């Protein structure tokens, strides 16, 4: 189905199933421990166990590997290294190859896989692999490397991109002439996805055919890049990932677990299962790169922005890409004179890549503090400043309108609900016992991306509706919203729909990434359901154009019949995909929101604790308010982590992230997160897709850290521009203690 004109009225608009709060249909499995994750599939009997050896150096070469002792250790079946693995390619989506040798590209890059009878034996033998490295000098200091880094454009691979330099109007002149301006630098650190399920795979060969159970967000990318890496045809690989224990971008791409499981199984001539050990996850995998950002804003005394510039620098491995932190600044606020630019330094730290809301997440962390600073200079309410600079068109290309943009309503409604009027405009005024209390606001913004997505819908002779698509559910609620979509289209309850996901045997979907999954995957299911409706109506002798599917029946033209009867003569199969052409040339698709946060800062110790959080979101039609809300509160939680505690500490001598486990890389725990409130504005974006839905899974992450930073400033009167906002960054500037 080609979607190239805005949707008109369609069966989804009935909103009998879609749009209703619905418990997850996979809930009983997940809450009883019955949902099988990658390491847990039991279809293969008697697997051997793999354990990965990671590089001890960040950059250099492997001079030799002595495997004698490891090979002689109890239970060892085989050991894979680059020297024994044969010729390997590199995945198209991978910046760095997944098995080192002889060149080492980064710390904890895999150098070997030990396969043994048991997990305990594999782990013990892995410690006996002796690697002799020649360490080379590397580049690990972002600030140093940025001094000579070139301007670079690019895309995160997840939809957020920007050119090296982008100019509209005359920024420098306008900025110089602006009566009120700010010019500030902001830093964000490297972040780790830290998903709860480690990278894990089970590989089994049958002749030249490979079956891989794994944990991956993008089945087709994973399959294609595994084929490319192993040098085998893609159609020889079956890749399955029905449950994904969190990804956040970390499992967008083929990773070492999948490649090594496949190589290990081949070498050991046995199925192999492996999970990457947690202390290796941070440096072996990708991460969100640190940024160094400079923002200049010039405004008229009434708050009208006349000049806006956002420059960002980040680093990555050779041939990697920039963190597109300037992306949102091209679109979020009006202003005639604009400049964005990005620099990319070469670093030999682990590969930087997409993490939840790449680009916007760190970009909004800076931009939304800058807006707060400008508001203060203007003596203007920060909500009012954002409203003043709203735009309904792409500021760089005014002929392109936003398909839908209700940022102003998000801000005003949020302000009212949150009690924003009680905020003291002067910082450092509100005290509650030992706590300095402050409120902060930020806009939320994340682009919506259209992507091709396919699905197959079956109506069985038994009347059961089954949806098959390689879409993944990474906690997003895909199982449930797909059931709701098929249920709405075919006139049956969501509970009556069987949803099968995450297998390369199914039609290729949008996959889970860039908050594009829900809207595009359900639109693909919509398209397949349209095909099935045609067949079902024809079987029942009803004109497909006028057929109505409701309550398990199909009716039209005075005729009516049971849906199940349509398949009594044989299973019906509808398969199609949603494809997009030119609407995104005419319209800018984006999602909007407003974050409001109240914090307390301990006047003695400088520790910040969040007291209240509210997000108001405008993201098109909300397919399931339950799972959509969960996506937003989860993103707010991750945003709270990035505001207050998350930072991969770089050891610039050894080129590694030092705090590479879950004890030392702190992410929020229960005690950090108060009751959270989320409001969705009632929207349906008919220009986006037939579901009239857009993404929401990353919107909640964009801006929340800025709102927290602004609340901290409002509490203390001390501005911190360097994330995370740990206590030492304002401790000695807090009010003196008696």
């Amino acid at each position, binding site marked *: 189905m080609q979607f190239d004109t805005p949707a008109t009225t369609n069966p989804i608009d009935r909103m009998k199933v879609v749009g209703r709060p619905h418990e997850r249909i996979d809930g009983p499995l997940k809450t009883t421990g019955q949902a099988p994750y990658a390491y847990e599939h039991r279809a293969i009997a008697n697997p051997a166990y793999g354990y990965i050896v990671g590089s001890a150096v960040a950059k250099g070469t492997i001079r030799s590997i002595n495997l004698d002792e490891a090979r002689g250790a109890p239970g060892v079946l085989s050991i894979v290294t680059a020297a024994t693995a044969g010729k390997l390619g590199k995945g198209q989506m991978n910046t760095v190859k997944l098995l080192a040798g002889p060149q080492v590209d980064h710390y904890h890059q895999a150098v070997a896989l030990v396969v043994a009878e048991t997990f305990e034996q594999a782990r*013990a033998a892995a410690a006996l692999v002796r690697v002799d490295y020649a360490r080379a000098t590397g580049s690990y200091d972002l600030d140093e490397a940025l001094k000579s880094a070139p301007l670079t454009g690019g895309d995160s691979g997840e939809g957020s991109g920007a050119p090296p330099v982008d100019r509209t109007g005359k920024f420098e002149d306008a900025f110089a002439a602006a009566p009120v301006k700010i010019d500030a630098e902001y830093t964000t650190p490297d972040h780790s996805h830290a998903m709860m399920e480690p990278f894990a795979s089970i590989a089994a060969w049958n002749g030249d055919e490979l079956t891989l159970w794994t944990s991956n967000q993008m089945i087709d990318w994973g399959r294609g890049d595994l084929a490319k890496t192993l040098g085998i045809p893609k159609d020889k690989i079956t890749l399955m990932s029905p449950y994904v224990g969190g990804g956040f971008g970390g499992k967008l791409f083929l990773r070492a677990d999948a490649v090594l499981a496949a190589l290990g199984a081949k070498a050991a001539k046995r199925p192999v299962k492996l999970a990457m050990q947690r*202390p290796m996850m941070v440096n072996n995998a990708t991460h969100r790169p640190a940024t160094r950002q400079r923002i200049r804003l010039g405004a008229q005394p009434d708050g009208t922005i006349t000049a806006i510039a956002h420059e960002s620098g980040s680093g990555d491995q050779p041939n990697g890409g920039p963190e597109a932190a300037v992306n949102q600044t091209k679109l979020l606020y009006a202003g005639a004179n604009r400049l964005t630019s990005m620099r990319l330094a070469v670093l030999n730290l682990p590969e930087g890549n997409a993490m939840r809301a790449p680009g916007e997440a760190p970009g909004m962390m800076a931009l939304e503090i800058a807006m707060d600073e400008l508001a203060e200079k203007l003596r203007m309410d920060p909500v009012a400043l954002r409203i003043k600079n709203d735009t309904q068109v792409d500021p760089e290309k005014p002929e392109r309108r936003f398909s839908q943009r209700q940022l102003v309503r998000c801000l005003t409604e949020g302000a009212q609900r949150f009690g924003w009027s009680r905020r003291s405009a002067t910082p450092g005024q509100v005290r509650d016992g030992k706590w300095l209390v402050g409120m902060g606001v930020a806009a939320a913004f994340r682009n919506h991306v259209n992507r091709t997505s396919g699905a197959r819908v079956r109506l069985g002779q038994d009347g059961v509706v089954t949806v098959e698509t390689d879409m993944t559910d990474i906690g997003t609620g895909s199982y449930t919203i797909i059931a709701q979509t098929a249920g709405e289209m075919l006139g049956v309850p969501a509970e009556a729909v069987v949803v099968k996901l995450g297998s390369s045997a199914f039609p290729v979907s949008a996959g889970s990434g860039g908050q594009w999954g829900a809207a595009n995957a359900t639109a693909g299911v919509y398209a397949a359901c349209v095909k099935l409706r045609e067949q079902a109506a024809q079987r029942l002798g009803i004109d497909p154009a006028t057929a109505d599917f409701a309550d398990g029946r199909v009716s039209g033209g005075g005729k009516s019949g049971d849906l199940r009867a349509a398949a009594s003569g044989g299973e019906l199969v509808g398969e199609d995909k949603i494809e997009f052409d030119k609407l995104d040339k005419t319209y800018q698709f984006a999602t909007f929101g407003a974050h409001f946060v109240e914090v307390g800062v301990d006047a003695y*110790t*400088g*520790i910040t604790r969040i007291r209240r959080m509210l997000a108001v979101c405008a993201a098109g039609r909300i397919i399931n308010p339950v799972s959509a809300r969960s996506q937003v509160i989860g993103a707010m939680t991750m945003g709270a982590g990035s505001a207050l505690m998350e930072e991969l500490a770089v050891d610039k001598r050894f080129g590694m992230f030092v705090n590479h486990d879950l004890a030392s890389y702190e992410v929020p725990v229960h005690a950090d997160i108060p009751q959270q409130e989320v409001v969705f504005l009632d929207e349906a974006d008919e220009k986006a897709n037939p579901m009239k839905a857009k993404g929401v899974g990353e919107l909640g992450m964009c801006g929340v850290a800025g709102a927290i930073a602004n609340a901290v400033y409002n509490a203390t009167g001390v501005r911190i521009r360097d994330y995370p906002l740990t206590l030492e960054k304002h401790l*000695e500037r807090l009010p003196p203690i008696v």
Partner: protein
Amino acid sequence: MRAFTYERAKDAVEAARIVAGRPDAKFIAGGTNLLDLMKLEIETPTHLVDVQDLGFDKIEKTRDGGLRIGALVTNTDLAADERVRRDYGVLTRAIVAGASGQLRNKASTAGNLLQRTRCPYFYDTNMACNKRKPGSGCAAIGGYSRQLGVIGVSNACIATFPGDMAVAMRVLDAAIETVDGGGQKRSIPIAEFHRLWGDRPEIDTVLKPGELITAVTLPRPIGGRHFYEKVRDRASYAYALVSVAAVIQRDGTGRVAFGGVAPRPWRVEAADALLPQGAAAVTARAFQGATPTRDNAFKLPLATRALASVIAQAKA
């Protein structure tokens, strides 16, 4: 993890004798720290003597009005004991500020005293660490040291003792009772139990090989108001950047020890005496000669401010 044999001891002296006789043997009680380290081959025992059946799981009154806490009493049970909550509140406060509910259910009193540092370079076996591998150097010096020690550290090691419980025990003047393989018992004041690293950072405590902790004793209650102020980035389930254990009397005198700053719970009795003069006076004395790094210099003002918070609460 290296292969090991395992036995369950039935008798404390016998257990001590076995471990004393084999340098590669270790006691295991809760296991929450030892197994963590064994998985990384930071600890590599080839024989484990499980002491869980030795019966050291009671909290009893001592003849002089204090408490004797069995070495195997779990953190949860110790924190929940009514006498501890009433008379040694700082101890309950410190325990429940540490780790998680699950870990506290397993962690033992003795094991908690023996927990090893959380220095990230100690934990990464690719990195030099004099504590893990004597003579290999210290990668933490000149590296990422935000969590690490500011006082009592050495040129060989800047790690901290990471625990909370022991910091409270330090202000309570607890003593550690042990038995060795010859049946010899001794009582070690907690002030002397944890070593300063000096040039032997691989040795954490004054225990001799095979010496088994049987109990921790607390002297009779000293009254006062009890506080444990733990400062950390996240609100729970995190090690202290700085912690303050304090018992403060109505007249403003008292005792104070600091966690997260040194190889041992850090208490300077001469600094205690300055409590009536305020936090700054106490920390100036307690942290005299401190050698912070650029990353962790904030711990000094933080210790002062955290103590000031405690003093303010005591006055409230």
